[in-house]
């Protein structure tokens, strides 16, 4: 029977058919559109609505941008140039941008904030990116003093004497190394405080009269614009992280008193709006300080903004601490590490890594909250914008100013959030 088989099956294919093209609706752009834009009738309606919305926006906004006026000295001039057409009057930015950035800082000294900003970038580079040379960290440690001196000016002795406090603290720390961590830190802090409170003023006065080395002083009331936002934001960010860590540890502490104080502080600060704290700084601080003391408004604001961010930071870091498995703490104890070594080597690196998104969110929030200083009379960008809108030249203008200010804030905040994503990826150690 087997030999008849060949006749019953007249044709057997021995090669593969060439692959046919998939149906037109299942390939290329058509497929993508079908899957991503018209996948079901709900999706189709949403797509059409979105396209309509985008088209409407473009139709409305395009002439506004296309007819932009860059050269004019007032809104009326802009309108004359536009001659009835809709158009943006960016001239307001062109005329006022230096004020929006520097406030009333003396124009011939603009190089100082610019230099301070450039040096700031150099100082944060080794902290942010592992590729930067590690020796730069010494520069980062010195930068706060350079930055303050460049911005406020005055005799160089102020910042040098302030820095001396840290040096004295460090020397005491080394000197007391035989006595254990508690006495060491206590002694160092007390020595530094004694220096700052009792000797610093005297030394500064003596040195300033004997050797008047310095640059022109610029009072705080001349600060303004984005400069003030960046000064407050950067100081708040730099101070709130370490303080927040301490406060979070305080809240996790076994000592009831320390824990109680931390909880009350955190809950109080988180329970009231930042604006009330800022008003406390501007209205009430004179009640709480010895009669006759009067210190810089920007410094007060920095302190309040820092306290505010510290409470939020502490809660974020507490979340990270709580997320660590119990075994990590026990492992550190089993290795015989003392409290601070365990925190520094085992707990914090992991807890901080977990809390990166929260920490950066707090930073972003802090930077955005610097706009609130307008309420206590500091001329931040919004304050400057209101002042510009109040002049007869630019009355009635708002989109251009707020787009400019908003865009700069956006760039800062968006880069911070992207950096946090990059940092999370870099520090990712689990294999997912």
């Amino acid at each position, binding site marked *: 029977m087997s030999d008849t088989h060949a006749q019953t099956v007249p044709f057997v294919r021995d090669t593969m058919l060439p692959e046919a093209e998939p149906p037109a609706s299942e390939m290329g752009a058509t497929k993508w559109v079908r*899957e*991503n*834009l018209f*996948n079901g009738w709900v*999706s189709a309606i*949403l*797509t059409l609505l*979105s*396209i309509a*919305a*985008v088209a409407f926006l473009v139709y409305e906004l395009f002439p506004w941008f296309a007819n932009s006026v860059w050269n004019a000295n007032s809104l009326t001039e802009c309108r004359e140039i536009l001659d009835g057409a809709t158009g943006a009057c960016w001239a307001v930015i062109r005329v006022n941008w230096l004020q929006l950035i520097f406030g009333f800082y003396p124009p011939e000294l603009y190089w100082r904030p610019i230099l301070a900003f450039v040096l700031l970038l150099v100082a944060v580079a080794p902290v942010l990116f592992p590729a930067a040379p590690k020796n730069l960290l010494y520069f980062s440690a010195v930068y706060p003093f350079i930055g303050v001196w460049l911005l406020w000016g005055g005799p160089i002795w102020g910042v040098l004497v302030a820095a001396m406090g840290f040096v004295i603290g460090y020397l005491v720390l080394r000197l007391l190394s035989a006595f*254990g961590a*508690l*006495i060491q830190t206590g002694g160092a802090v007390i020595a530094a405080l004694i220096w700052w409170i009792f000797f610093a003023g005297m030394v500064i006065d003596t040195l300033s009269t004997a050797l008047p080395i310095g640059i022109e002083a610029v009072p705080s009331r001349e600060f303004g614009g984005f400069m003030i936002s960046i000064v407050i934001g950067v100081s708040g960010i730099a101070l709130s992280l370490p303080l927040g860590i301490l406060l979070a540890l305080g809240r996790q502490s*076994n*000592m*009831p*008193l*320390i824990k109680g*104080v931390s909880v009350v502080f955190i*809950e*109080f600060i*988180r*329970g*009231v*709006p*930042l*604006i*009330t704290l800022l*008003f*406390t700084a501007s*209205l*009430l601080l*004179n*009640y*709480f*300080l*010895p*009669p006759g003391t009067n210190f810089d408004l920007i410094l007060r604001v920095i302190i309040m903004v820092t306290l505010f961010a510290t409470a939020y930071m502490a809660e974020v870091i507490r979340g990270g601490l709580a997320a660590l498995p119990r075994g990590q703490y026990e492992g550190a104890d089993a290795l015989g590490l003392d409290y601070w070594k365990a925190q520094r080597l085992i707990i914090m690196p992991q807890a901080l890594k977990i809390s990166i998104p929260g920490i950066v969110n707090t930073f*972003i929030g802090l930077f*955005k*909250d610097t*706009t*609130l200083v*307008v*309420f206590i009379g500091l001329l931040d960008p*919004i304050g400057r914008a*209101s002042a510009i809108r109040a002049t007869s030249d630019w009355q*009635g203008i*708002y*989109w251009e100013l*707020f787009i400019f*200010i*908003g865009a700069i*804030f*956006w760039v800062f*905040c*968006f880069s911070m*959030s992207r950096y946090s994503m990059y940092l999370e990826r870099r520090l990712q150690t689990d294999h997912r």
Partner: protein
Amino acid sequence: MAMDSGAPQRSFTLGMLLYDTRYRSYTIQIFALILLMLGAAWLVDNTIRNLAALGKDFSFDFLWSTSGYDISQRPIEYDSTYTHGRAAIVGLLNTLILAVMACATATVIGVIAGVLRLSKNWIVAKLMTIYVETFRNVPVLIWIIVVSAVMSESMPAPRDFRGDTPAASMVFDAVAITNRGVYVPGPLFDNSLGSFNFLGVQPSLDIIAVIAVIALSIWANVLLLRHAAKVQNATGIRPKTWWKSILILLAPITILLFALGFHLDYPELRGFNFQGGIQMRNSLLAMWLGLSIYTGAFIAEIVRAGILAINKGQTEAAFALGVQPSKTMRLVILPQALRVIVPPLISQYLNITKNTSLGLAVGYMDLRSTLGGITINQTGRELEGMMLMMLIYLVVSLAISTAMNIYNNRVRLKER
């Protein structure tokens, strides 16, 4: 010979206060306590001396003196002859009204944007991403001021609505959007029940009756659904309830509204301005819209994170059990996602409540502008006013976070 199994007993030495972990915490705490008390004493002493130098005392009497200023938006009866305390209450109510309105709209915006951002539709997802990234990276103060500027500078003036061919017209003949605010229809009752006096406030009995009837209908409907579930559990057949639900929910309120002679009071152009209806001032609108769109972006991210946090296996398991997709969402995904979503959501509500204090920027008369603003300026009682205001904000915040903790404890995973 007795074996000594314990550690060698050492007598207590002073050095152990520093080096022995058993005693060291006491040393640190006592030291901290001393510092704390010294600091507090220093602050109090400074305050007393400063107050004495200014010739001021510390008293809250100013709350009972005549305020002498008007408040544009007053939910309860108030004018300049009332007291500063009453002004503070009006401010607090304005704060709470704004907070509740902004929380509601921000939640709606946030849930829609969060769900749409997860949509498979490319263009919708991208648009929502743009919305979220734009709005949360720009300070809320800018949004508030922009909305306020748009409202007061690009909207038509009431006089533009006049004439045979007016330059502006009302939306659906009911809502007038002007540069003095938005006028919406308000409720009117022909056979009003009147109002009663409650601690100096006159709440309208009509509104209370309407709210009570709605609450009772909802409660009755819940009872009906529970009964239906019981029957289903016992017999396996769920009785039809939809027409009963509709009847219970709609009939009583319709009858009540009819009995009260309810009708809408439309805003009308009379003289130089609109009369009738409810006027929503520009300050309220700017705060409300500004806070809603800004916080909505944050809520969108929270909702997205909550939905993404639910394991895909949950959906697959529900499908494997033969649960319909809509029921999967309602019975399986949502209850679990809510557990992730609600705590950060409430903390956004807290943020909204605190951000209402930005009303200062657009002249919204909230607690900060009344008690913490004009009252302080008029009476010179910064210390008392600020302390009272912080206390009130603190109480409101703590009340919200207590509610969150109760909810958290209720929905927490019961782990063994």
